[in-house]
């Protein structure tokens, strides 16, 4: 949305300059509350976590400097590495499923909505409903529906002759992660849909009229005119998906599957690993230093992803003046 907003009148070349005013007291007063709260409760904790990740806890409660020792343990120590790589791999699968199911589905729905069908507003409003619900609620609702005890999913599939396909997906090692991912897709598809819909609406009518006069069919207009124009938005959607995948996915998995990522760690992701490491659970006592290390690894992984995107993808995207 950014580029569109900034195209508005304010950025027109103008001879008027920002006014230089006398004192700076009011500037400080305006900025201080936001800078203060943000620095203390957002930036400082992050920096402090980075610092903590360089220490190791001792049995007597003190901490000693270990440099990158925690990271080495996380990556190479047999007990830690197996959990770490498993969680990271599950996160990547989660991301992949969102990229191939959620975002194309969002694009399809947005493209259809942008044709301005009758009741378009109603469809848009209703499809966005799951996005508003708490992940906790979404998790339990789907757990109940998919449960073999209640049999709603099974009964409905049997009604259309697909009963033999049913399995308690959330409980099976091979399908649990996919099932959780699809629940997450169901919940969040409204966001890419809305962002892409907004981008499609912002394409000037003259451009589309010109394409029609040139004799392009509806499909050709979509693939050759609209899609290239909304590529920057698709890029933003991809990067939001990537970041959300490391943070928001925790809530869903924690509510449906608990903190261990069952069955047999098949739904364990970085968020649950961090929570477990930090607070501990039955077989393991909590360790704030290793918890901080897992958090920092997530931070680096997000940075690497965003960096790759900025360098590798965004620079190649052509932005068209609209």
């Amino acid at each position, binding site marked *: 949305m950014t580029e*569109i907003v900034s195209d508005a009148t*304010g950025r027109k070349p103008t001879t008027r*300059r920002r*006014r230089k005013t006398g004192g700076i007291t009011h500037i400080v007063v305006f900025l201080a509350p936001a800078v203060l709260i943000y620095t203390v409760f957002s930036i400082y*904790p992050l920096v402090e976590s980075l610092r903590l990740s360089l220490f190791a806890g001792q049995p007597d409660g003190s901490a000693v400097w270990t440099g990158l020792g925690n990271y080495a343990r996380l990556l190479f120590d047999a007990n830690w590495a197996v959990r770490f790589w498993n969680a990271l791999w599950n996160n990547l699968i989660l991301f992949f499923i969102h990229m191939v199911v959620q975002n194309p589905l969002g694009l399809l729905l947005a493209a259809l909505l942008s044709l301005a069908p009758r009741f378009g507003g109603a469809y848009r409003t209703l*499809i966005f*409903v799951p996005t*508003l619900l708490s992940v906790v609620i979404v998790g339990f609702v789907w757990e109940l529906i998919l449960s073999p005890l*209640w049999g709603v999913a099974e009964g409905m599939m049997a009604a259309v002759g697909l009963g033999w396909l049913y399995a308690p997906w959330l409980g099976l090692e091979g399908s649990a992660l996919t099932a959780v991912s699809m629940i997450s897709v169901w919940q969040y598809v409204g966001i890419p849909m809305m962002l892409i819909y907004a981008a499609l609406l912002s394409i000037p009518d003259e451009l589309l009229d010109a394409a029609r006069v040139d004799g392009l069919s509806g499909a050709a207009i979509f693939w050759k005119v609209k899609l290239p124009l909304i590529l920057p938005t698709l890029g933003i959607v991809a990067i939001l998906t990537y970041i959300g995948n490391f943070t928001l996915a925790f809530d869903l998995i924690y509510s449906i599957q608990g903190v261990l990522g069952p069955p047999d760690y098949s739904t364990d992701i970085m968020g649950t690993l961090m929570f477990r490491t930090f607070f501990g659970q039955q077989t393991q006592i909590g360790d704030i230093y290793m918890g901080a290390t897992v958090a920092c690894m997530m931070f680096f992984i997000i940075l690497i992803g965003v960096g790759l995107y900025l360098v590798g993808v965004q620079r190649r995207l052509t932005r068209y003046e609209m």
Partner: protein
Amino acid sequence: MNTVDTTRARRGRMGRIGTAAGVHAVLLTYTLIAIFPVVIVVLNSFKNRRGIFTEPLALPTAETFSTEGYATVLNQGNFLLYYGNSLIVTIVSLFLILLCGAMAAHALSEYRFKLNTLLGVYLILGIMVPIRLGTVAILQLMVDLSLVNTLVSLILVYTAQGLPVAIFILTEFMRTLSRDIKDCARVDGLSEYRIFFEVVLPLIRPVLATVAVFSMIPIWNDLWFPLILASSDATKTVTLGVQQFIGQYTVNWSAVLASLSIAILPVLVLYAIFSRQLISGITAGAVKG
């Protein structure tokens, strides 16, 4: 898209009807998928145990209608208190995000000073870096400030979490405001503070509403920070309360379904009232100035 052009006119009437039917078929199918789970939970929350299990897809009948689940929830759970907590946390956090965010955005978009660009980048950095990654240190900080198990701890964290996006959107918008009206106010001798509160704030009201709706959803729905910072019974939010209630009552299906409905319904009512605002907010970029 209303322009009638030759290509369109030449296309057969039947073709157009066919396309429209296809569009509606896809949209309707997905809409049903989107709301079906919500409908089925709310529907079954008004049934007795037998109704829930024998006919999960049927409407409650005179035989199966029951509000026993709601009775259990209201007797056992402290849901009114949890609602109050969620409301306090959400409203106060929103107020702080909007006030501090608008003030900072005003400073960044209105005045020229050293560090302007740098501070702007610093303040929106948080969009990229999820605040949850600092959880370990946030908990320690809250312990040091003796704010654990208080609503204040949640409010502070959510304010810090919401500020980057708010400042980003508000700064972009404020840059497009006309300068003349503020300069007029200065000529009239208004102080910089009065200009902000009496001239700028009224002008940005629509955008403030957008930011409010946007910031509200993740705060209301969050599970992570209530779980870590304020899980005591007196400070539980609805999201955490429902999560733990269901954990205890897994066998009592009517109570589980009722507690889910209790958590869903207010959100749906609010959405019904504010959906226009929310959607116009999300698609705001599309309206060209």
